[in-house]
């Protein structure tokens, strides 16, 4: 399958953060969520993709077009929704819609109207006068109908209320069903990730740790409740422990070791996604 987005060996120095080397591909039909602590470089990576921030080394290609080259046609194929939008403040939703829709040949007016009705977005008020939640709703209403193959969403639900979040997730799922598209997003909301993501990318201090398939990530993180004393040395797969339990990201190896050492566990369970993400983000 041809990748929509190819990021190859990209590096960038920003103040004290060294981002990269990043090597990542985004395939059509997938939703990938990038997670990481604040300041890990998530928003910077999005800005590197959009060529708003210039890379020091490496290559970023959208549909095989280098994003820092003279061919600017790649911008027709990507929608970027920043965490904080700048410059929209003086305009009403209607004016923004007229302007943005004129730039995208595949603009879906019916979808725009549907989102506006569903999320009850006031279009006649200036963007600056809208609440943060309504600003975010308007941004989304102006992002999805562009119908570009790739959608970059930086914290798309951070200001949304619970019903709006649910509606948005349904809209994103519907949007994905309409063709060979992909979403690459950042989020701190584990519920969003749980519902939407196919893949999870972990960024830690500017380094891309891995790209995980969500289901296998959940499947391979397990907690074992143990009543006996655990050996002090590390146990295969161990990524955390307390006096009463052991957390592993390699259950087969862990179980085999425990059986070999004749240590029995009283119960085992999957970790919830939030715990797994915490482990991945904070692991030293």
């Amino acid at each position, binding site marked *: 399958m041809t990748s929509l987005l190819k990021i190859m060996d990209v590096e960038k120095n*920003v103040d004290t953060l060294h981002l990269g080397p990043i090597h990542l591909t985004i395939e059509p039909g997938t939703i990938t969520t990038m997670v990481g602590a604040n300041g890990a470089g998530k928003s*910077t990576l999005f*800005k590197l993709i*959009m060529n*708003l*921030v*210039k890379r020091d080394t490496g290559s970023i290609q959208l549909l095989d077009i280098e994003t*820092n080259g003279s061919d*600017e*046609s790649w*911008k*027709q194929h990507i929608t*970027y929704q*920043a965490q*904080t*939008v*700048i*410059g*929209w*403040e*003086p*305009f009403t939703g209607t*004016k923004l819609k007229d*302007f*943005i829709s*004129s*730039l*995208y040949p595949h603009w879906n007016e019916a979808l725009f109207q549907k989102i506006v009705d569903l999320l009850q977005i006031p279009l006649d008020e200036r963007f600056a006068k809208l609440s943060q939640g309504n600003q975010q709703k308007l941004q989304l209403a102006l992002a999805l109908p562009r119908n570009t193959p790739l959608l970059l969403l930086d914290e798309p639900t951070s200001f949304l209320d619970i019903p709006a979040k649910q509606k948005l997730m349904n809209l994103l799922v519907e949007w994905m069903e309409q063709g060979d598209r992909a979403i690459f997003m950042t989020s701190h909301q584990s519920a969003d990730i749980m519902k939407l993501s196919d893949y999870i990318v972990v960024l830690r201090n500017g380094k891309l740790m891995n790209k995980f398939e969500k289901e296998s990530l959940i499947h391979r993180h397990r907690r074992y409740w143990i009543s006996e004393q655990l050996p002090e040395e590390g146990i295969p797969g161990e990524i955390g422990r307390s006096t009463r339990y052991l957390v592993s990201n390699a259950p087969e190896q862990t179980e085999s070791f425990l059986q070999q050492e004749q240590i029995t566990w009283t119960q085992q369970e999957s970790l919830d996604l939030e715990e797994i993400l915490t482990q991945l983000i904070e692991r030293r």
Partner: protein
Amino acid sequence: MQKWKQAWQIAKLELSVSTKKIAFGCLIILGFFPYAISYFQHYLENSVIIYDLFFILFFILGINVGNPNYWHSKQANVHSLLMMQLPLPIKQEIFIKSRFIIHFCFSFPVQIAFLIIFYVASPIAQLLSIPAYIAFAIIWLSVNLYIGTLTPINEVYPANWLFTAAMTFILLFIFLFILSVSHLIFDYGVVELSIIIAENWPVLSSVVSLIIGFTAVKAHQLYMKQIMNKRDYF
């Protein structure tokens, strides 16, 4: 021309919400009109440098002093419309042209209005015939083309208001130096010199001014592109 038309479509968005900015800028500039007209005779007799300075600044900036976009967005340390439009599928060349159009909309109309009023209300009509005055007008409108078009470049600089203020003071100092040299060497100020040039060589002065002006507009667009391709927009 097609590219300028596309750029106009982009510029229209900002112009549609610029009524207050234009009104504010006009209000500031209105103070300049009576001064420029009533002191003209005094200037001719005494060659006052400050009169030259006001003239130059007016033909560089127009009413851009009333346009907050002349200053950078505090939030992004960059022109805010730039941050809005850069991720959109607008070609860089079209975007740059649109910034120039915004500058021209904030300068040429008021400058042309001033030149018309100046001819009618000041004693300059006694010094210059209509063709010579047209040459005088072209000389001064060209100043906007070759110096004024540095204003949109300011929008993409990695700068804040302190940088802009510092640059403004440096430019003022340079202008004052040039004006002083002009007064010392020729015994005339630049406005007087432009009157003499327009009177004696109306066609040549117009053609040369326009060539320099249009070349500068082209060069400044390329320079703006270079800056945009180098800097980061966080």
